[in-house]
């Protein structure tokens, strides 16, 4: 591509020396994108925007926050009452975490259904799982900062997970705490790390995008575009589609912030931390509940911790567990059923994680946990062998146009279905 595609002489001058405009044009404007992407492909850009919202509001909050056990809670209340627009900024940050996870979970299930983790996108998928891990660590440490009861006891419970490690467990926990319990040194380092990790996420997101643009987006039918007739330029087709999705996302986000800002939080976190008394029911934030359910389902300390981390670890090796060459679930009749069973299983785990660990809930948690691992370790490898996929369309265009050569109206109708 030559520099003279830009009419502005200053842009041309800069681009000749630093091809930043060529790069942006290539990756954001003319970038060829499969023309059959549905709205589930909006969630990648939504996740990116959520990350930006979290970083911007987070930096601003840090200007008024004090990471000290004696002042942290008060400084957050001061943000809510005295700092100009502080209530708004904190509610954006607080609910932004939940919305970020909603978006990312949908993004992940999209990838699971359409086989976006399969060759040649294995590293793209693995980088995504790494982002999820970093997000979980960041969200956990952020939740500790207001230093309410849930902050304190959440920090205590989660750091104690590491005490399950044989031999060195206790030393590791002491190291994490910087003392003999969760205290001021813990709060200080959590603040430092909570500020650092979003920027690590930005780094991995950049790698995620580089890996994505190597082969381009997967698409709902999972076959590769065979040429320019199967793709459209990213701009304006998908910028417009992403902006439309963004406007819906922001409407829901704003409605939550202004009308139900504490819906996804826990009232006990408005009680200052008290190391002498644990609240009667302690539960993590909703986005950790499925993992929390897995932790509690295993009746052994080390086993529970391993199962919980295993639930994420298994995602890393997913590209080698599902050996079926067919990407999209649309053409895998049996996989499709198991996919929705798996979605239901994850929702069930989320529900069970929020219930008390007693009676029928324990039994159900164990069944759901077993199913979670069965899905990845037995069902997916088995399906790769025994399932007969439906015939694939010959090309993206064929599937979009319904096998006819007519343009226009036919594709518009198809898109709505």
């Amino acid at each position: 591509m030559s520099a003279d595609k830009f009419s502005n002489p200053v842009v041309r001058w800069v681009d000749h020396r630093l091809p930043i405009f060529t790069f942006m044009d290539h990756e954001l404007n003319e970038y060829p994108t499969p023309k059959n992407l549905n709205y589930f492909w909006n969630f990648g850009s939504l996740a990116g925007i959520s990350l930006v919202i979290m970083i911007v509001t987070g930096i601003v909050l840090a200007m008024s926050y004090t990471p000290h056990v004696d002042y942290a809670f008060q400084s957050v209340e001061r943000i809510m009452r005295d700092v100009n627009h502080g209530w708004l900024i904190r509610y954006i940050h607080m609910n932004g975490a939940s919305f970020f996870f909603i978006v990312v979970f949908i993004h992940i299930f999209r990838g699971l259904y359409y086989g976006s983790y399969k060759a040649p996108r294995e590293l793209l998928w693995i980088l995504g799982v790494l982002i999820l891990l970093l997000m979980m660590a960041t969200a956990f440490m952020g939740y500790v900062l207001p230093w309410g009861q849930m902050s304190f006891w959440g920090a205590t419970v989660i750091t104690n997970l590491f005490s399950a490690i044989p031999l060195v467990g206790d030393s590791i926990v002491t190291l994490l705490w910087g003392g003999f319990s969760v205290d001021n040194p813990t709060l200080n380092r959590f603040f430092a790390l909570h500020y650092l990790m979003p920027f690590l996420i930005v780094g991995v997101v950049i790698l995620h995008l580089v890996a994505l643009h190597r082969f381009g987006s997967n698409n709902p039918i999972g076959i590769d575009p065979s040429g320019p007739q199967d793709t459209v330029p990213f701009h304006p087709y998908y910028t417009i589609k992403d902006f439309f999705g963004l406007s819906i996302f922001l409407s829901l986000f704003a409605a939550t912030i202004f009308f139900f800002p504490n819906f996804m939080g826990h009232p006990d976190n408005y009680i200052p931390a008290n190391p002498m008394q644990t609240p009667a029911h302690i539960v993590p934030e909703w986005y950790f509940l499925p993992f929390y359910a897995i932790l509690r389902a295993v009746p052994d300390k080390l086993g529970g911790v391993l199962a919980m981390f295993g639930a994420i670890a298994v995602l890393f090796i997913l590209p080698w567990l599902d050996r079926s060459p067919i990407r999209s679930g649309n053409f895998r009749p049996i996989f499709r059923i198991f996919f929705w069973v798996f979605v239901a299983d994850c929702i069930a785990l989320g529900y069970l994680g929020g219930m008390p660990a007693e009676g029928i809930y324990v039994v159900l948690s164990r069944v759901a946990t077993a199913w979670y691992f069965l899905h990845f370790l037995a069902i997916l490898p088995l399906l790769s062998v025994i399932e007969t996929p439906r015939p694939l369309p010959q090309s993206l265009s064929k599937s979009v146009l319904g096998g006819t050569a007519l343009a226009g109206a036919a594709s518009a109708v198809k898109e709505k279905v």
Partner: protein
Amino acid sequence: MTKTQTLKQGDIPANMGRRDFIVVASYAMAGIGLASVAWPLIDQMNPAADTLALASIEVDISKIEVGQAITVKWRGKPVFIRHRSETEITSAQSVQLSDLKDPQTDDERVTNPQFLVMIGVCTHLGCVPLGQKTGDVKGEYDGWFCPCHGSHYDSSGRIRKGPAPLNLEIPPYQFASDAVIKIG
């Protein structure tokens, strides 16, 4: 789709005008949206409600002997309160306005000539001038001297020599009683 195909060439400008309007309107809305989101993020750096609430203090001046000065903290800045001697008052009052860089009579700068109350921050670049303690350098005009860049203030706190452009600032204050000053 079909409509576009049936358009004649002459129809295109009118159509384009409407499209341009939509594009410009969209950009304008996006701009307004971004600005309204940016404002709270910037405005949060302004003083918070509790900071503004701490804006006034009361000071007991009955213990300050003639010739002595005290420094109190108001809004994070030092406020100089000097109980001036007769000599200091006379010399401050006898200065010709034409000799001053920032002309102001001594009367304009005090409520009670015995007590000079002013913010102890040099109007040049914000250092705290010397002259409050016995033994401090008081400058060539027997008032205050800023060690950072050499500004000399007289016994009324007016700039006489050096780079500072203005006299030392007088904070809003009033005598709550003979012995107590309320600043702010």
